[in-house]
């Protein structure tokens, strides 16, 4: 039995087969009455949360910076896509992919600017900058009448399960390839010691720009998908509480681990649904979990570990940390 699981763990075919099967299942759900609308909604939220969690993990886990502004990127993506679908684009098959790409691009552009700010400051001060960024995005949106101001917008419901699954796969694929590339090593080197990394010839600025922009891009993608499934977005849905939720997922699942991101997002979303009856007390329980995690298990469930399926072949048999 154990040998079977070990060979399954090392199998290079398992993940592609799972992806194909998962996609087939999602398409089937879309056309056949296999699961009800509520379950479908929860599954889409799981997907969006996986994207958010994996993309924040790139900055907070792999690069070891502390960003609390991920909800800001989500807001940028959500509003950019909502403007696309409500005001600019006619209804068509290409409406959703274009809107999501546009949302991601807008977020990535702002993420690039934030990366420029991160050159001079790090640690606590970078956390402050991302916090300020989040607040600025929120109050800017509140003041722009074109975006509905505090009243919010009502984008059409376009996101379906296959699209959500598609974007989850794309996110994980790109981030996984990035992390195990030359840039990924640069990002990890910055986490361990920025000054030493710089001295060793790591291009710190390039790596930071890439990490922040990629993270922001997928944050925006998640926001766009969220806007096109939730029917209603307003500035309040992207406040610090939303950022904390993403942080809980990252630190629950595990820092610097894609398998951890998936696990964290799944556990969090299901727990969040299960605790629906608690009302506002839910917002007490979530940060409490975060505090307890930090005290007793600061790296999360899968911290610094990775499922063998995500590792490149050359690293399967080495003991090196990702």
């Amino acid at each position: 039995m154990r040998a079977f699981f070990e060979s399954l763990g090392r199998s290079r075919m398992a993940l592609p087969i799972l992806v194909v099967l998962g996609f087939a299942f999602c398409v089937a759900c879309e056309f056949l009455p296999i699961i009800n609308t509520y379950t479908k909604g929860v599954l889409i939220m799981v997907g969006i949360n996986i994207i958010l969690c994996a993309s924040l993990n790139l900055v907070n886990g792999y690069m070891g910076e502390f960003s609390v502004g991920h909800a800001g990127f989500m807001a940028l993506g959500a509003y950019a896509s909502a403007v696309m679908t409500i005001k600019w684009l006619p209804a068509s098959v290409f409406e959703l992919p274009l809107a999501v790409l546009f949302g991601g691009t807008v977020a990535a552009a702002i993420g690039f600017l934030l990366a420029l700010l991160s050159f001079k400051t790090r640690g606590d001060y970078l956390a402050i900058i991302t916090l300020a960024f989040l607040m600025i995005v929120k109050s800017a949106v509140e003041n722009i009448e074109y975006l509905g101001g505090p009243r919010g917008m009502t984008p059409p419901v376009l996101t379906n399960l296959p699209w959500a699954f598609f974007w989850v796969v794309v996110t994980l694929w790109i981030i996984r390839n990035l992390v195990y590339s030359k840039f990924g090593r640069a990002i990890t080197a910055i986490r361990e010691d920025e000054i030493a990394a710089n001295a060793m010839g790591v291009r710190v600025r390039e790596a930071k720009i890439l990490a922040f922009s990629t993270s922001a891009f997928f944050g925006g993608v998640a926001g766009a998908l969220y806007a096109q499934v939730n029917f209603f977005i307003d500035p309040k849905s992207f406040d610090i509480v939303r950022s904390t939720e993403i942080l809980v997922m990252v630190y629950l699942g595990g820092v610097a681990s894609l398998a951890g991101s998936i696990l964290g997002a799944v556990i969090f979303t299901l727990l969040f649904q299960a605790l629906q009856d608690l009302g506002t007390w839910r917002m007490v329980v979530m940060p409490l979990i975060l505090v307890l995690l930090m005290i007793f298990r600061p790296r999360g469930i899968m911290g610094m570990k990775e499922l063998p399926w995500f590792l490149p072949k050359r690293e399967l048999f080495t003991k090196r940390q990702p």
Partner: protein
Amino acid sequence: MLYYIAQQTINAIQLGSIYALIALGYSMVYGVLVMINFAHSDLFMLGAFACLLLATMLPVQLPFVVILLLVMAIIGLLGALIERVAYRPLRGAPRVSAIITALGCGLVIQNTTLSLSPYPKYMPELFNSRTLTFSGLTITTLQILIIGISFGLMVALDFLIRKTRYGMAMRAISFDVRTVPLMGIPVNRIISLTFLVGAGLGGAAGMLYGLAYPQISSGIGILIGWKAFIAAVIGGIGSIRGAVLGGFLLGLVEVMAVAFTDSSYRDLIAYSLLLLILVFKPYGLLGQAPNQKV
């Protein structure tokens, strides 16, 4: 026009003194522990609620000064308790863990208050305020009281830090935390004391805020407390005088922003100012850049 500006300046000093009181708590904790105590803004909020409870729930009407001292004591002890329970186990952990814990503690306090009191509450009038007029400018005795108490507390804090043994120990810890225990200074006790004093000032600020702007809710922690945090950063977090300077500067900027533009731009302007200062002076107006050794 000039009158208008002068009148607004009085409001700015009132708001600024409240900001400065809260900012002091942020700065003191950063000075000794090099960590941002995000829960501080929620302790400020609890200060307002503690005052409300003391003023309305007790059978006897306590004198103003007693309420102020009680609020400071309660919030101060709560601050020290949070440090003991949540921050001390993480003293040696990575810095990020400490920030996350602080953020989490703040949200726990804020949302617990929200769950217990979902609707805004109104502060009773504890002080019989009169309006004075000096050559066209009006100022209420309440405003004078608030500004007076704030300045009194700031002077007392300055005395504590510069002239007493505890203050000397605090400054020593922020100067070099590794050598200090070798000199026989009880580090843990001094850190607890710092949280006690810092949170106590925050609680006092919460009470003064409640008196000045009687509608209080669980949201004022984010609304006002985090602004004070900006003030601390603008002044240079870790620097006591910087916190006061930042508080008054931010109060002035905000009041003028509201006076001359739309009030909904208030947050936008405050946070943009923060971003600008951090870009051009990353360690604040009076802060010192830490030495980074390889």
